[in-house]
């Protein structure tokens, strides 16, 4: 079909050129004589052109008066040939010197890597292709020094925390700015159901490169949005030549990383009695109470007790998920048009049903050269994703399977003998214990689902006025509709009494961006290169949502609001913000040896007070390419050596939209009438938080390009922090937002790549590590700690724990003990006994990526690690209640509990109601703080590429088959399911292990 089309087009082309005087044919080869296909051959000064075929042969008709043919191809030096009298011109093309031409996307422009003087990490397509991950931010994990990526939990397509070079803000957001093909993405989440990560719209395999602008100087061109760093994503584009197809399919399984052993029915019964007796009950009454807790009559015999069954709820809940992905893309182009079209479908089912993620996406990129000077680019990304949400994304709800699975009392059956669920409301059966919902039934019956439809696109017109001067105008949109459907089936506990409950929500995000830039790039007298950039930009974000709730459904088969008997609530809101900006850059390079860049941006934002609407952000960057110096040019031991220094400012505007204003809210209601109340005091002086950062960097390549080292050291200071300043509540308000305080981050980042073997057996290894230190430098009014959060203290890092220290178990009494501030034992630690212990951010972290290949075989192994991070393990805390409440508990605690005077153990005596006599709660202080230190084999891929000869016989370009494992191996001392999470680890679906196998065909 395609061939026929080309033929027809060629005929038309030839017909129009019938009066042409001359037809030139020839063969294009590389410098070793191998034929080159898809080389563009054009007649200089015209639009006439063609491409070479697989044998490198071309044929072109040259209009009268034209004397030069131009040959160009990706990776090759452009070549020009004069047309003589011969009708055959054979050409040998030279490989382009790639290292020299390596480019980096820096924001509003692309520059030579040589000219970069700030800290930018780049992740290329080859590193992240075919990764079984629905979100590109996840793929960044461990691959960029100084960037912490952590999954909030194991919900496929769920939240990710991405923190670039430490946290500098207390109340303002810490999310980096994401820019996809020039469109700044709105990263607010619209779902009340689950985590629908706004970055899910893009299929990772459509990405050409991810550039992370880490230091304030690099990010400064993005001004007030850039203080948390900037992530620039560039998607793949069409390449000149015949259409190339790429089809890739993979599928596999996902399962839990681990389980935790809990008690049998008999063990729990014994432990429960012990808890009651320790709390003062007589053995006889404890026996009766423990029986009644298990739903058994007081006359139950010991024989009956010994034969009680134990049901494994964890086993029932932790199933097996599956993964499937299919995608196809086509790209190609002629002289004036290039295109890239890609479609994909992906499905990730979590190992705890019914949570999943499904996405269909389409990316269309067309670039059209209207004439040699004007190019129109159009990019359109459309995606729709559907997610079944868990009953809870992470809280202590009784119906939350991830939370409850280990705590259901084991005496409760899961199913009845006839296969129906046990203990459903209205059945006469009751599940005993605090966790009294059949979580398997909830998984099947409850329908919480979220649909996210997203469109991200832009059109740009580029006008190359002269080879040096380029004008560009761009308009883009990032549009997202999130629809939540929360149906609590009338058969489940939470909705039985009201015959089912439904909440429907729609949330629209419309984010419009447009900019116009001027770029001037010229080299004077061979030595002086200047690169000027100027631009204006406007962005407007708008969010609107509404929600309607109803209850009372005649049947569980009726699941929409029109069947609800009683409306229970409606709500909705609107909010918007806008910024208007001007920016400029001056770049100067002397013989590519000395690089100097200066940028400035002026932002005006609707979010800030009348008195401070405008802010200016500047950066200066210098670099020295020492390799270009004459004394180093001929030193073969050093292939590249560059020193960089930069200073920059960037702003943080991630706060609410109208915090400057004094407002009356209208969300209250009394007696069927609405109420208004003073909701916000407002601050007309409100302005951005500013980050100022110094960065020193070194890039070194030695040993015949086998060893590359990049080192960066930085010190950044966030000042005028956007702080929610606590007010005395007697004013009627709890806080106002003001610009107060300073926070410092210091760090060192190292990236080492080696290629020790470059022959038939190749090994490429890339290791990165980053150390970070954070400190609160100053608060306000001379305060040593924040009144609203005593853990935020001058001289200590953000994210610290500030609590009393656990002192273990008193061997004489079995009671838990704490240290007071003087190091003495206490049972009632007070506020004065708190001290700083541990921090939720790692001390150092990074990744280690290895690629081995031999002939067609390749192995990719990527390790990722985080050391020095401390978190509270909420799940563990709740599972260590040791029958002090009617929930199942951990076998490890049971085996290690205090029972008799003299026992030296870690777990205190069990106590009904959890807090021992005249003692603080059982989970107080540092008892449940643990280090999350882990190293894990994040990704292991074993692949085989069919040899070129075989592929050719099949008329294909390439065939690759592979198997992949994600999170295959983890080393950690974390006590509950998995150390990778954000928050308090309450009832989240843990991160899982994935195994997939795939095949990719190119033709």
């Amino acid at each position: 079909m395609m061939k026929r089309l080309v033929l027809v087009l060629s005929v038309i082309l030839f017909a129009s050129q019938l009066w042409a005087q001359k037809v030139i044919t020839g063969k294009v080869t590389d410098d070793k004589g191998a034929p080159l296909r898809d080389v563009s051959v054009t007649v200089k000064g015209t639009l006439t052109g063609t491409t070479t075929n697989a044998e490198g042969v071309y044929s072109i008709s040259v209009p009268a008066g034209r004397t030069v043919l131009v040959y160009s191809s990706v990776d090759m030096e452009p070549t020009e040939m004069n047309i003589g009298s011969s009708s055959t011109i054979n050409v040998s093309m030279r490989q382009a010197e790639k290292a020299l031409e390596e480019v980096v996307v820096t924001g509003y422009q692309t520059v030579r890597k040589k000219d970069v003087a700030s800290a930018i990490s780049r992740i290329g397509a080859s590193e992240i292709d075919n990764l079984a991950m629905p979100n590109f931010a996840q793929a960044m994990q461990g691959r960029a020094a100084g960037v912490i990526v952590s999954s909030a939990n194991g919900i496929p397509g769920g939240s990710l925390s991405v923190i670039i070079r430490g946290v500098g803000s207390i109340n303002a957001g810490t999310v980096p700015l994401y820019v996809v093909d020039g469109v700044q993405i709105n990263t607010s989440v619209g779902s009340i159901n689950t985590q629908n990560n706004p970055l899910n719209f893009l299929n990772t395999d459509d990405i050409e490169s991810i550039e992370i602008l880490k230091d304030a100087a690099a990010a400064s061109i993005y001004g007030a949005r850039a203080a948390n760093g900037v992530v620039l994503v560039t998607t793949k584009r069409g390449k000149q030549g015949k259409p190339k197809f790429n089809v890739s399919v993979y599928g596999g399984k996902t399962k839990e990383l681990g389980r935790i052993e809990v008690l049998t029915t008999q063990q729990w019964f014994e432990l429960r009695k012990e808890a009651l007796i320790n709390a003062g009950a007589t053995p006889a009454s404890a026996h009766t109470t423990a029986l009644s807790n298990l739903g058994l009559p007081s006359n139950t015999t010991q024989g009956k007790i010994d034969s009680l069954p134990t049901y494994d709820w964890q086993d029932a809940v932790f199933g097996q998920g599956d993964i499937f992905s299919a995608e196809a893309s086509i790209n190609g182009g002629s002289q004036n048009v290039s295109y890239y079209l890609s479609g994909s479908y992906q499905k990730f089912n979590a190992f705890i049903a019914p949570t999943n993620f499904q996405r269909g996406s389409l990316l269309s990129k067309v670039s059209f050269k209207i004439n040699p000077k004007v190019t129109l680019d159009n990019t359109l990304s459309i995606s729709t994703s559907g997610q079944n949400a868990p009953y809870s994304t992470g809280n202590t709800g009784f119906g939350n399977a991830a939370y409850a699975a280990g705590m259901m009392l084991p005496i409760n059956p899961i199913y009845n003998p006839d296969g129906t669920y046990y203990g459903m409301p209205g059945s006469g059966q009751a599940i005993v214990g605090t966790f009294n919902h059949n979580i398997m039934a909830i998984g099947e019956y409850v329908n919480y689902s979220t649909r996210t439809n997203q469109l991200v696109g832009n059109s740009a017109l580029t006008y190359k006025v002269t080879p040096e001067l380029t004008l560009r105008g761009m308009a883009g949109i990032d549009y997202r509709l999130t629809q939540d459907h929360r149906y609590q089936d009338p058969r489940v506990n939470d909705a039985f009494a009201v015959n089912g409950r439904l909440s429907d929500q729609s949330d629209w995000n419309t984010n419009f961006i447009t900019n116009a830039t001027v770029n001037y790039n010229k080299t004077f007298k061979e030595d002086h290169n200047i690169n000027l950039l100027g631009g204006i930009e406007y962005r407007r974000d708008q969010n609107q949502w509404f929600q309607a709730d109803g209850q009372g459904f005649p049947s569980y088969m009726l699941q929409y609001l029109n069947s609800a008997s009683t409306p229970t609530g409606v709500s909705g809101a609107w909010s918007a913000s806008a910024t208007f900006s001007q920016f400029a850059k001056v770049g100067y390079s002397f013989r590519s040896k000395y690089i100097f860049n200066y940028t400035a941006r002026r932002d005006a934002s609707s979010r800030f007070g009348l008195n401070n609407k405008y802010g200016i952000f500047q950066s200066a960057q210098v670099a020295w390419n020492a390799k270009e110096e004459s004394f180093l040019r001929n030193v073969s031991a050093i292939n590249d050596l560059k020193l960089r220094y930069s200073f920059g400012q960037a702003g943080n505007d991630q706060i609410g939209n109208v915090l400057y204003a004094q407002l009356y809210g209208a969300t209250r209601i009394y007696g069927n009438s609405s109420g208004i109340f003073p909701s916000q005091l407002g601050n007309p002086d409100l302005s951005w938080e500013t980050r100022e950062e110094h960065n020193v960097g070194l890039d070194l390549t030695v040993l015949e390009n086998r060893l590359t080292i990049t080192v960066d050291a930085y010190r950044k200071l966030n000042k005028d922090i956007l702080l929610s300043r606590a007010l005395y509540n007697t004013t009627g308000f709890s806080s106002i937002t003001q610009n107060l305080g300073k926070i410092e981050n210091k760090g060192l980042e190292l990236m080492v790549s080696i290629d020790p073997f470059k022959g038939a057996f190749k090994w490429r290894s890339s290791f990165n590590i980053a150390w970070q230190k954070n400190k609160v430098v100053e608060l306000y009014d001379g305060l040593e700690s924040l009144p609203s959060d005593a853990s935020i203290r001058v001289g200590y890092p953000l994210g610290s724990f500030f609590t009393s220290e656990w002192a273990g178990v008193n061997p004489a009494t079995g009671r838990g003990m704490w240290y007071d501030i003087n190091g003495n034992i206490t049972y009632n630690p007070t506020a004065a006994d708190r001290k700083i212990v541990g921090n939720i951010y790692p001390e150092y972290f990074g990744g280690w990526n290895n690629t081995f290949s031999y002939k067609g075989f390749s192995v990719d192994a990527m390790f990722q690690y985080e050391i020095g991070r401390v978190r509270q393990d909420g799940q563990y805390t709740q599972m260590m209640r040791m029958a002090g409440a009617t929930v199942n508990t951990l076998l490890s605690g049971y085996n290690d509990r205090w029972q008799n005077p003299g026992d030296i153990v870690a777990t205190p005596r069990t106590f009904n109601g959890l807090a021992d006599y005249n003692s603080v709660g059982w989970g107080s202080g540092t008892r449940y703080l643990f280090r999350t230190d882990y190293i894990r084999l994040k990704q292991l891929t074993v692949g085989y590429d069919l040899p070129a000869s075989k592929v050719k016989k099949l008329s294909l370009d390439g065939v690759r088959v592979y198997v992949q494992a994600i999170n295959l191996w983890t080393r950690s001392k974390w006590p509950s399911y998995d150390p990778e999470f954000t928050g308090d680890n309450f009832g989240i679906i843990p991160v899982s292990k994935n195994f997939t196998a795939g095949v990719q065909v190119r033709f």
Partner: protein
Amino acid sequence: MTKMRVKILMLSVIAGVFAQSCKKQLDIPSRTSLDADLALRTKSGIEASLNSVYSVLKSERQYGRDMFSVPDAMADIAFANGRSSRLLGENRNQSLSNMANWTTSYGAINEINLTLAAIGGVGDATDAEKLRWEGEFKFLRALYYFDLVKNYAYIPTFTVPSQDKGGVVLTLQGFNSAAAAAEFRPSRAATADVYNQIMNDLYAAVGLLSNANKGRNYASKHAALALGSRVALYQGNWQRADSFATAAITLTGGIGTMTTTANYITGWRAADHPEGIFQVWFATLGENLGVNTSLAATHTTLASPGAVGGVRTGQGDLVPNGFLLSQLGIAGYPVLLSASAPLPALTFSSDVRNRLFEWGVNASGHYIECTKWMGKNGSANWDNTVVLRWPELYLNRAEARYHLSNEVGANADLTTIYTARIVGYTPGAPLAGQPLLDEILRQRMLEFAFEGHRFYDLKRYGLTITKSNPTVTLPANDFRLLPRIPVGEVDGNPNMVQNFGY
């Protein structure tokens, strides 16, 4: 080519014009909130502000739950069974497990102060409306301050002078600027001054409001008199407690009436309790506090009376303890309160109040639960909260009369209660002296079980809180009797004094 240039030029001009208009786009006011300058200029604004101040009473920290359930958990009549681990600390009188109505109360008080100052400037309202607003706001301010001071300070009738740090912060001026709020360094007013302010507001409300105003869901003269009698009782101003109670009892065209033994139970099953003088109204289903913290969910697992075999509807966290059950005249319950099927049969004395207590649904065992709230408004967890109820008038007056040495009057008021609560009541010998006072307090305990009175009755007489399960002996001079003032209120404020022991 020139055509193309023209096109580009035109596009540039359009872009330039657009860029200029962008600057105007930077003013984006809220569409979901009102500009504070405009909010209170109209009648509808003031009415909406009034609704807001009432609505705060619905919150969990106020009459949504805490005002009733927390003090009763701390007192000597209840057992927190830990089914959902709620109210355990309160029940054990642990430090820091106490009332926490500071923040919500001062939010409402600030709004009252701001709106009271704005009423005069409203153009589209009649004088009568303005007077009514002022009366309602002052009643509400009295209620909020009373609920603050009775918790965060000693009650005037019993103080521990060495530990007494005064009353609460008294603000009568609203805050409407960030600068003033940031500079505010309040101090605690003397307890007596706070009570005087409360009574001033109540006197004003009595004078400004009509007898029944808009019924029991809103402030009225009747409600102001009833609240006044309680405030005076806490103040130890027996004369005033007597006169306010008498005025409320004899008010014509007031709200509600006493129930009798015949309609006592149906009174409690009705959405609007016929004895209610002032109640917090949960008008729509969506306003209920849900399955965890509504009053119904806190106190019972039952969906309806007798539904012991039915579906568990609430948590049933706070249940009567053995002491209360025996005082109510219930017998047959197990010592540990929890039982499994077959459930022991219970016997009930002739006091109808015990008929509101029955076996709940099995949830880690069955407990006898209080059924004063069980979704009376038509759906689970949905109940109004009656703040002021008729029998209190008689019990307040009986207590005041006792202190005024009018034992005959006190006995007469007790007889009114007995007659309304005990089937076939036959008067016995009148009580005198301490036994009379003890009986008045005992009747308050039985009448208002789980309605948030008992803890303060013990507190204002300096009585030790004694419980056997959990084992607690809390003398009246223990620091845990008073809550900690939120730490953030004291930090950085040299004028503010924390309560003793924290």
